Structures are given as structure tokens and as C-alpha cells.
């Protein structure tokens, strides 16, 4: 493994240095039919699950075949995507915000061969490499974060539960039987890099134990004032601690009853780890949306306060999700999003229909927003 230089000279880091050039210009990458018809699109149709057509005022059409992807992708997998795009799409491809891969062609007769090619490609264990779907009133790819694969604060894995959940939800990826589209997202901790706080169904990794205190190293690894300031509930204060060897060190003390396990202290101070095999697990939230359609955007609400991590397939999590999806599919009206359905029937009824237990953990007790979630009317349902 000889070191190969790209031309960079560490002795003269500024020599020929190019910085702040930004990304490549998007127009370089447009397929010709997109370039020609940009801003001229008249309407679109979903021809079948995973296949869209967009019609331009010039009469041109672009057909899109949408395939699911695992987000975590090897370069071999990306090269295979490139081969498909070279073969069918003139070397063009795009990704969606939900990590689907979109292959575009400019005539209808190119759709079937492309679809056939995508669906014929299987992994060695039998999984599809490029399942076609993710459109309309169904479930598209789950956006997610890094989890145990690459993150230092996760309370659960990401790719693992997502693979397990997508296997369970697969039929709704390839069909469009739901009342409206349903967005599932996963964030592996409260930081919510995946912004799951406004998803129809959110799988959220969650810690339940206060941080451990690595007293011997705390003052060396952390700025104690930053760790104290990081706590949103002021649960951390400075403390002098006697170590077993008789040394006295500067450290912190945590008021455990004030801790809501957000992990912000750990972010500021690596000597306060909080991950735990038993303490960590999953919160399920539902009813969020970002679109302004019919009703205002909504936050997701916690409906299951805790499910243990159950690698490799997280069965209790996927089962609860399936229960919610089935109850929604059965009961909601056409165009009604999951949260709109829950609000119409009332949350007490939501718990009945989804067969979920309501526990004290589901009553908000965090600051001002809590008050606005308690019931201030006699109009409730038995």
C-alpha cells in the first residue's frame, strides 16, 4: 500500500489550492429532455406504482422509473446504477430526497425493458437490488440516519431497523392502496438528523438512562462550563469528586430526576456517555406531515414511549408500525393523511383502532408546549 499523492504538496498547502468552488452546476447533469422542457411541464400521471410520466407543453414526455435504495451504498452498487443508466437512460440518473433512484427515459417503449432490467437484478440473498415503487398513495423509501454503523450518539441502529421495516412494508412500497401517501422516517437519536419530527410514522432512537460520569477523565476531556450550559433542564452542576486513589478532581454532578436523556451533554462532553443496551430503544411517533395540503403541517406525536432494541430485525417495532398502517388503511378517508385521520376520529379512538396502549409517558410534561396538549373541553369520547 504505497502512498500515492494526488499532486497535493503538504509542504506547500496553498500551492495551486482551489477552494470555495461549490458543487457542479446542475445543468451539466440534466438529461436532454429535462433541459429542453424545464419550466414547461403541464401535468404528470402515475402510470403504475413506481412509474411516472410528465408531459410538457412542447409535447415531450419524460417517463421516470423509481427504484428504492438502501441509502447506504457501496461503489459497486453505484457503478451498477451507472451501468443501468448508461444502458437505458443515456447516462443520466437522479436521486430523490427520500433516497430513491430515478431512471428517466424519453419514450414509453423504453419503460418496460428498463423496469424488467431493474427487477431482474437480485442480491445473493434474494433481496431486490432495485425494487420499483414508492409513488402515490403508498409508502416510499424510509429516510434515515447513520445509527450504529457510523454515528457516535445513536440509541439504535438505522440501516438495520429500516431494512426490517421496509421488508414488512414492502407491499405498500410497490402498491398504492392507502388513503394518502405515508412517510416513514427514522432518526437514531433525539438530534433527529433525519428530521423525523414531522413524519406520518417516525421511528426514533431514544436513551433512557442519565449520562455516566467518567470523573477521572472528565476535566481533561471536556470544558466543564460547556457541559453544564448544554443541559436544557439545568440538571448538571459542577462538583469536586474524590477518586478512589485519593485524588480530588473537578467534575460534574447530574440531578438524575431532571434528565430527559437528550444527550446534549454528551455532545459537548465525551466523558458523559449515556448509551446502554437496556436503556436504549425506540419511540414511535405518528401523525406528522410537512405539506400544507388541506391542513397545516403537523408534528409527529409519541404513541409508543418505548420499544427495546431487538437486533437484527426489531420485530416489536415493525409489528407496531404494521398495526398502525393497517388501521389507517382500513379506516381513513381518501386523501386523509395519518395525522388528519387521528385528529378526525380523536386520539382516544386512534389508540383503540391501532390497539396501542396509552400510558402516562404519552402525556406531555415538557415546558410550555405541554399545556397546549392537555384537553380543555368536555368534548371527549368514551
Amino acid at each position, binding site marked *: 500500500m504505497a*502512498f500515492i*499523492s*494526488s499532486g*497535493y504538496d503538504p509542504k506547500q498547502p496553498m500551492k495551486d489550492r482551489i*477552494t470555495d*468552488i*461549490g*458543487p*457542479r452546476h*446542475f445543468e451539466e447533469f*440534466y438529461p436532454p429532455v429535462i433541459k429542453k422542457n*424545464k419550466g414547461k*411541464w*403541464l401535468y*404528470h400521471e*402515475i402510470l403504475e*406504482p413506481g412509474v411516472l410520466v*410528465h408531459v410538457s407543453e412542447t409535447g415531450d414526455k419524460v417517463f421516470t422509473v423509481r427504484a428504492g435504495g*438502501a*441509502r*447506504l*451504498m*457501496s461503489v*459497486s452498487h453505484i*457503478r451498477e*446504477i*451507472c451501468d443501468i443508466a448508461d444502458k437505458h437512460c443515456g447516462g443520466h*440518473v*437522479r436521486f430523490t*430526497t427520500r433516497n430513491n*433512484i430515478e431512471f428517466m427515459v424519453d419514450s414509453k417503449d423504453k419503460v418496460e425493458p428498463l423496469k424488467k432490467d431493474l427487477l431482474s437484478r437480485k*442480491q445473493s440473498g434474494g*433481496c*431486490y437490488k432495485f*425494487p420499483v415503487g414508492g409513488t402515490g398513495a403508498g409508502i416510499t423509501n424510509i429516510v434515515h440516519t447513520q445509527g*450504529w454503523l*457510523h454515528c*457516535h450518539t445513536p440509541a439504535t441502529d438505522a440501516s438495520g431497523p429500516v*431494512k426490517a421495516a421496509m421488508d414488512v412494508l414492502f407491499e405498500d412500497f410497490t402498491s*398504492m392502496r392507502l388513503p394518502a401517501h405515508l412517510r416513514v422516517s427514522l432518526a437514531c437519536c433525539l438530534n433527529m*438528523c433525519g*428530521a*423525523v419530527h*414531522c413524519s406520518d410514522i417516525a421511528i426514533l432512537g431514544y436513551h433512557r438512562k442519565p449520562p455516566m460520569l467518567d470523573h477521572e477523565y472528565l476535566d481533561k476531556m471536556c470544558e466543564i462550563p460547556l457541559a453544564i450550559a448544554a443541559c*436544557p433542564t439545568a440538571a448538571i452542576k459542577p462538583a469536586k469528586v474524590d477518586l478512589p486513589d485519593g485524588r480530588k478532581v473537578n467534575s460534574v454532578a447530574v440531578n438524575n430526576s431532571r434528565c430527559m436523556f*437528550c444527550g446534549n451533554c454528551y455532545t459537548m462532553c465525551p466523558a458523559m456517555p449515556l448509551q*446502554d*443496551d*437496556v436503556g*436504549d430503544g425506540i419511540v414511535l411517533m405518528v401523525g406528522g406531515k*410537512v405539506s*400544507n*395540503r*388541506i*391542513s397545516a*403541517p403537523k408534528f409527529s406525536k409519541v404513541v409508543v414511549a418505548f420499544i427495546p*432494541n431487538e437486533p437484527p430485525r426489531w420485530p416489536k417495532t415493525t409489528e407496531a408500525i404494521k398495526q398502525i398502517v393497517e388501521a389507517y388503511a382500513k379506516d381513513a378517508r381518501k*386523501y386523509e393523511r395519518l395525522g388528519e385521520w387521528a385528529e378526525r376520529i380523536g386520539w382516544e379512538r386512534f389508540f383503540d383502532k391501532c390497539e396501542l396502549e396509552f400510558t402516562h409517558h404519552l402525556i406531555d410534561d*415538557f*415546558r410550555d408546549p405541554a399545556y397546549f396538549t392537555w384537553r380543555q373541553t368536555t368534548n371527549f369520547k368514551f
Partner: protein
Amino acid sequence: MAKHKTPLLDQLETGPWPSFVTDIKREAESRAKNEKGVEYQIPQDVCEDILGLLELSFKHGRTHWKHGGIVGVFGYGGGVIGRYCDQPEMFKGVAHFHTLRVNQPAGKFYKTEFLKQLCDLWDMRGSGITNMHGSTGDIILLGTTTPQLEEIFYELTHKYNQDLGGSGSNLRTPSDCIGQARCEYACYDTQALCHDLTNSYQDELHRPAFPYKFKFKLDGCPNCCVASIARADMSFIGTWRDDIGIDQEAVKAYVGGEIQPNAGAHAGRDWGPFDIKKEVINLCPTECMKYKDGKLFINNKECTRCMHCINVMPRALRIGNDRGLSILVGAKAPILDGAQMGSLLVPFIKAEEPYDEIKEVIEKIWDWWMEEGKNRERLGELIKRQGFQKLLEATEIKPMPQHVQEPRSNPYIFWKEEEVEGGFKRDVNEFRKHHQR
């Protein structure tokens, strides 16, 4: 023969959905064989070790990545995330496993030629594992060692005309929806504005000088496909001010069942024949529509542009022609003070190059936030702490009813001294002349 046994991960190799485990194993195999004779610059068995480490996490129920690690490329404070594993002896290949964020092209369109170049680069100088894409939108290259960082940056900029994205307390890589490239609902060119803002603010993107992260996200219409309203400190959401276009012939075709409603999104189930009263008129949140004598009428003055009718009948209804965007500010996920949705700041602004009007709003907000924001305080939290009125003062925007869902229900108004005739100073002795103690 695999280097590490992975009985738990192996269980994720069945089922219909693509398996990341199989994919990484395939990459491990490809690196072991090295048929193309690549001169790998980081350990050849890195993929085996990432699987081994992940298996250990599956077994322990805990992550095995250490906190932090400050690495980067010269002159930048963002774009690289340092990552070290906490079992370096057991998994030497991933002892150092840093991430690079590569700024994606707007709209995430690619030519395969460019993707293949990235693959070659990441094959040789990285782990061969990526995210396409990260939640913020960047192309994520997962796993390399410190000596490779400058080399990768040099190749990216010199060979591929491509820059890194943002990380840390700076402007995060802006991202956008597909916009006018392939969507009839887009009210402005999201790609053009995204690219312009990204390039205009390269310094803010690469050199952290902010109290915390700051996100721009751009949606072409109120359907909000990139979720800007929920997760961007500044969301740019396309909208229009004039009338929705109506093609009455197409309306008839929907009513007659010749065209499927909602672009065919509900085809997986028999919902019965399309009923325009039930599915459009009665679901309109402002009740501004009626269907009479085979014609559709919209009282556009009362329309709030929720998009429902247009989504249901895309061939009959069309976004207006006086197009621009709304700016909402302060959205964020729960950390630390609870989740916040974006709040409307600018109801309408034209989105035309060089976007000076938009940039003026951005820069005034940054000035205020950089002056007043505390360490790790998102814009939304500052707005909550100091009040929306302070935001209006900072941006010199006039208050208007569009700014509120409803006016305040408590009358505790903080009048300023200069707003009250005669100011706050009074003479208590003069007062006592007429009021005994």
C-alpha cells in the same frame, strides 16, 4: 471466507428490500479480489471490519464509535467529520473512519461519468461505502483516514471541479426539491436559487462562524417535498399571488372519469367513481370553490394555496402566473427546546436573479443571530427567546396579519418608552401634590 462472523447481520440478507449487509459484503469481496489492481490507500479489508464492528454493536446494543475527533482540510472548518472506532485493535481497518460531505448538485441529477469518477476516487482513497444521500442532502463518503483527506480534496477540486459541503456551526449544504426541472407545481427555479445561494455563501458554508448550524431548504410549492417548513432555519417555499388557472374541459374529463384523480396516486384500490363535490369542493379548507352547471369556480381571493385541488386535478388546475416564494424561518428538530415549525416572515418575494432582495433578508437575519444568539442556539430558539417582534425589527419587515395565526390573547404588551407619550420618567413629588401618602 469472511474475516468476521456476522450471524446477526446475516439475518438482514433476506426479504425483498435491498440489503445493505449484502451490499457491503459484495464490496468487501470486490476489494479482496481487487481485479482492477487498485492501489488502495486505506486498509483493503475496511469493509470486512465495518461489518465486524456493526455486528458487535448488534450484539452489544450500543454504538462502537468514539465521540468526536477534529479533522478537516486546510482552511475549512466544515465538510469533514472525524470518526474513530472504540475497538481499534479488533478492527484495524476502521480505527480511523472519517466522513466527507460532498456538496451535491442541485436537484440531485447526475451524469454517470461523474458518479463513476466519485466511485473511483472513493474506491482508491476511501472505504468504498457511501450514502446517496445524507439527510441534509450531501453525497456522503463514509470512511477514510486522515492522510487521505487533503488528497481527496485536491482530487475533488482539481479533477472533478467539485467542492465539499458543510458541517459544524456553519451554513449547511442547501438542498432543494426537483422544482421546475420536472414538476409542474414549481413556482420558481429551486435549483437556480439553491445553486446561487450555495455559491454566494461559500465562506459561511466552509468556515464556521455561527452560533450553531443553519439550514436553507428550498421547496417549489406548498407540498414541501424537501420538508423545508419542518427542518430549515430558512425555508423558501414557492407560491403565487394571482388566480389558479382552470381548464374547464379537463375538469369535465375528471368528472366524467376519463382522467384519474390525483394523477393516479390512488390506483391501488377501488375508491368508487370520482366525486368532485366530495373530493375537492368539500375538502377545500377555505370553502372558496364551487361546482355549478358543470363548471368549477374558485374565489381566488379567499384561497390559501394549500394545493389540494391542484394535486387532485393536475390536468385541470394550474398554479398562478404571478409566482414567487414565501420565506419561513426558525424550523428545527426537538433538540434542545422542542421541535419548531417554520414561522412565516415574508409572505411573498420574487425569486429572480441576482436574488438581492432575498439575500438582504438572509444577511439581516444572520447579523441579528450572530450578535444575539447563544452558543448552540438555533435561529428558531432565538426568535422564541427574544420574540417575533425582535425578528421583525432586525429584518425591517412591517408587521402584518399574515405573521400570526391569531393575535395575542394576553394583553401583557411590552410597550417601549418611546412608544408612550411623555416617556417613562415622571416626577413623584409633582404626583404627591395631588395624592397623599
